[in-house]
């Protein structure tokens, strides 16, 4: 989405007037006992990187996270609204909310306001009833559960890698390695993705977060 207000000759460069977008590469993988989620850390306004250390893995509840892609303002506003709704619902229930409930809340908002919003969201977490789950809510407001899901502008470049390298029944460590490598490849090719790789593992034990800095990213053949 591009919005320009007042093209004042060249006094105000283009990047001061375009909307902030999380160009993005995001990913989530289910494993036995939880989920692994990952994202890059770049937010752009046009060609300028507004934030090179963005955290796109946003907590919605204790063991439910969402990965945000698309318009930064839209996804932040949606995530804040869903966090409130889910927190209220969880207090009413006096129970940990289901990941499916969180995903449904996202879907309801993204579908209802689909004309006004530009948001591609992956909801992932762990709940006591169904364990680790990944639900994807792309632009347009559809919602579906997937064992592995990628999103954002960088995802186009890694569908082949993900489809060929994913196996059901991977361990936590294998999932972490798989996610880190996939995101690295996406960041390498997509101009709107970059910075560091943020990873999180959500399971019954809680949430473990880690950051892989630029120089520590996995290396592939340099062409």
């Amino acid at each position, binding site marked *: 989405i591009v919005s320009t207000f007042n093209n004042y000759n060249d006094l*105000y460069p283009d990047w001061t007037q375009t909307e902030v977008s999380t160009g993005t590469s995001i990913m989530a993988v289910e494993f036995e006992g939880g989920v692994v989620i990952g994202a890059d850390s770049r937010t752009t306004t046009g060609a300028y990187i507004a*934030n090179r250390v963005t955290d796109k893995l946003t907590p919605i509840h204790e063991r439910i996270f969402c990965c945000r892609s698309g318009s930064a303002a839209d996804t932040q506003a949606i995530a804040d609204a869903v966090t409130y709704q889910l927190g209220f619902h969880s207090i009413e229930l006096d129970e940990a909310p289901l990941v499916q409930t969180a995903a449904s809340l996202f879907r309801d908002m993204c579908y209802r306001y689909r004309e006004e919003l530009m948001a591609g969201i992956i909801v992932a977490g762990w709940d006591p009833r169904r364990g680790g789950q990944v639900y994807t809510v792309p632009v347009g407001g559809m919602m579906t559960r997937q064992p592995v899901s990628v999103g954002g502008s960088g995802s186009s470049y890694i569908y082949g890698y993900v489809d060929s390298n994913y196996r059901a029944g991977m361990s936590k460590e294998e999932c972490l390695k798989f996610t880190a490598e996939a995101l690295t490849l996406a960041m390498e090719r997509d101009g709107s993705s970059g910075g560091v790789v943020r990873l999180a593992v959500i399971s019954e034990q809680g949430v473990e977060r880690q950051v892989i800095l630029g120089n520590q990213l996995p290396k592939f053949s340099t062409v």
Partner: protein
Amino acid sequence: MATVSVCQYHRGGFSFENCKRNALLEADINKLGFSSPAARKTGTTICGVVYKDGVVLGADTRATEGMVVADKNCSKIHYISPNVYCCGAGTAADTEMTTQIISSNLELHSLSTGRLPRVATANRMLKQMLFRYQGYIGAALVLGGVDSTGPQLYSIYPHGSTDKLPYVTMGSGSLAAMAVFEDRYRPNMEEEEAKRLVRDAIAAGIFNDLGSGSNIDLCVITKGKVDYLRPHDVANKKGVREDKINGRPETGNYRYKHGTTGVLTKAVTPLNLEVVEESVQTMDTS
């Protein structure tokens, strides 16, 4: 859950009332042959940095109307609450009014809670308002302050997205300022070093960006104390005119000393004129 607010928000979505009025006015003005006034923008370089004891906010002081400087010394660091200040870039009216509205509501909120307001609260209020107006309020803000949770710095974009970072820059001069920050920022700086860094970042914007200029204002916020340094640095002093008599500037005197221009030849032709009529009319200078 009643919230005490000064301004009554519209229920549901954007209010288009003023858009209709503006369109009618625009049409009327164009019919008469005039063009509607351009919105005054603060071209701007604004920035902020978190240091050991708090935050330092900085801003230039130029406000532009198209390609003309409308205000050579405008104040871009706005008061939000005793412990929170906000720099504003973008449309000057938007930044001014937005910060005033949130400042007002935050004061009421603070009286209601009985506590000093938090920076995160101001951030929430600002982002939710700007998101509601879908980017039509052209306010790009750098919000900084110190509260019970510690020093915090946020950058807020016109569409309502925010970033919480240790150093931020906004405005047309933000790239120049960010270059300075990326080179010299360190975590947990001392106050003097932080002030020098912010001053240099704004100076980079002033001297390398056409939309920014004039002086450098600084605002140092620590726990329990705010230093509003306006101006902190007069980076662009107005020159003194050459033509002075006895130290007093003599306006409109463009005389040059005899001999400034060399005379090559001189030819004098006397004109024999007869005075026909002479009358004096006194001017009414009362």
